[in-house]
């Protein structure tokens, strides 16, 4: 019983991280119609930057949350630069844009290897969330519960942003019908930059708050990108609810699969995706992909 309970909490925690990662992926996909293959790299870059800020640069050590915020901002700016200076040069040519993001992901991966080396970095749990909570016989690290809390707060904030603000309405209009949105005076190309930066920032934030659990290592990008893909294919692109449900489902399958079928965990992870592709290619909450 305890085993299942712990596994469930771990699944939800991982689902929360995946939601932070895939919400941006899904929005970028919904708006720009491209899978951003640098998304795993942005996650890893956020984790590396955050870890470095915590360890200290130029003798300045940072508090975990300050480091997370700074890493998020740096990577968000990097995302904006990618969109403005590379993807913008290939308007309307989605295959080429995907290939550029793929090429960039190799550059980033090798850059990280060059700067931080091949050894994994561990990230210390923030002081506020060390320790454990007991529920009967089961013991949960506070940090995992904290991640669930943070992910929930961000999910609500994102929902409010998309559903209640003018910017959110503009993004939704751009996702639904970019041409019509342009006609009514929304600068869709500017939205591209904003959404790309937002998605990059969310991925980086997920990377750093995932750091104490996953640690930071070369190849982290290649581990996370397929998960984001599965979430978005499952949930449907451009839908916040879709990436939320998809993340939780994938979080459960990933953790239970690894505990019960370690050799085939990866395969089990992709099974629901295949089922969705066969029976509902647009994803659970999405509209048909072009």
């Amino acid at each position, binding site marked *: 019983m305890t085993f299942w309970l712990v596994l469930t909490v771990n699944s939800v925690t991982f689902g929360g991280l995946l939601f932070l990662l895939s919400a941006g992926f899904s929005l970028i996909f919904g708006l720009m*119609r*491209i*899978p951003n*293959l640098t998304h795993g790299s942005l996650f890893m870059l956020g984790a590396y930057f955050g870890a470095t800020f915590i360890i200290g640069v130029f003798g300045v050590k940072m508090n975990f949350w300050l480091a997370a915020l700074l890493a998020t901002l740096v990577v968000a700016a990097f995302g904006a630069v990618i969109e403005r200076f*590379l993807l913008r*040069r*290939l308007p309307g*040519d*989605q*295959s*080429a844009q*995907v*290939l*550029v993001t*793929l*090429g*960039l*992901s*190799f*550059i980033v*991966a*090798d*850059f990280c290897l*060059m700067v931080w080396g091949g050894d994994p970095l561990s990230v210390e749990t923030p002081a506020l969330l060390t320790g454990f909570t007991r529920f009967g016989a089961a013991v949960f690290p506070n940090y995992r519960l904290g991640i669930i809390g943070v992910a929930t707060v961000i999910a609500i904030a994102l929902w409010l942003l998309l559903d209640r603000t003018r910017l959110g309405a503009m993004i939704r209009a751009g996702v639904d019908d970019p041409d019509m949105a342009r006609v009514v005076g929304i600068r869709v190309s500017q939205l591209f930059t904003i959404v790309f930066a937002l998605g990059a920032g969310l991925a980086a934030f997920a990377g750093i708050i995932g750091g104490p659990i996953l640690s930071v290592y070369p190849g982290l990008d*290649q581990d996370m990108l*397929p998960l984001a*893909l*599965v979430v978005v*294919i499952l949930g449907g692109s451009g839908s916040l609810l879709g990436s939320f449900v998809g993340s939780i489902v994938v979080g459960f399958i990933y953790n239970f699969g690894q505990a019960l079928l*370690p*050799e*085939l*965990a*990866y*395969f089990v*992870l*992709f099974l629901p*995706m*295949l089922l969705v*592709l*066969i029976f509902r*290619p647009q994803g659970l909450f999405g509209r048909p*992909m*072009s």
Partner: protein
Amino acid sequence: MSGARTQRINTGRAIFLSVAFVALVTLPYWMSGIYYVNVSSQILFYAVFALGLNILVGYGGLVSLGHAGLFGITAYAVAYLLSVGFGHTLAVLLALIIGLICTAVYAALSLRATGIGFIMITLALGEILWGLAYRWISLTGGDNGINVRTRPSPFGFDLNSATVFYYATLIIFLLSVIAVAIFVRSPFGAALMGTRDQPRRMNALGYHVWAIRFWACLLSGLLTSIAAVLFVYYTQFISPQTTALTASAEVLLMVIAGGPATLLGPVVGAALVVVVKNVVSGYIERWNFLLGAIFVAIVILMPEGLVPGVARLWRQGRRALRRRRGAAAVAAPAEPDR
């Protein structure tokens, strides 16, 4: 006028192809050192792989990011069957059949979508295959991979010799080029290009767009599998690295760098990537960085690829030259009038 020009281009092309053919056939005699003969073998089997991918990417307009997974299936199948005691002939035949069956499944799943959807699904399928190779340790040996201890001796030619291996690869390469050339000129090839450019119109004309794409996938998978057999006998070792996304991206780079939807583009691309990889990795470790940078540069600066790109520059150069000469010829007799 235009007939004469086409004829001139055809003559030029014929001369170029004959020179290339003679150079390839005599390569072990003028190329010094076994190392370079081996690099040439690598170029040739990667070219077969790239030719296979080009059928989808170039002629079908379907960008597959999971082809290294298919490549890996056949390579693993050969290695595994040999390791459990099958003979070479049977192992290769069975591996090709396994490769084709898996390609059929791969195609059936990924052709649920086209365009970006196709890219995403093939990427995910490629990642599954990588994950299986990496984690299904009882079958694949995990990170340790599988060794292939012996090379076969078809018709009494011992493939352990670098030169013999080169010639075997060359024969298969030439057959593949001829096969793709025939395919491109066939009604099937024309239909595939039709589904790339005008899928709806092709559908309205009564073509079964899905089936055309499916058979194109199988043809692509066959060439991929053949290349994989050559690869696994060449390296005598297979590990998950072969099926990774990097490997898929490398072969896609060969196609895109050389020129998609051209016959010789993938061959030039394979030569470029293999040479850069072998030469550069001798000096620096940062091959992936360079791979990414070349990728981004080619997509942004020369999206049509090197072969058409250089051909375009060559044509423009000639036209500019002729115009200058023509302008001089016009200007000269005009002067006395003034």
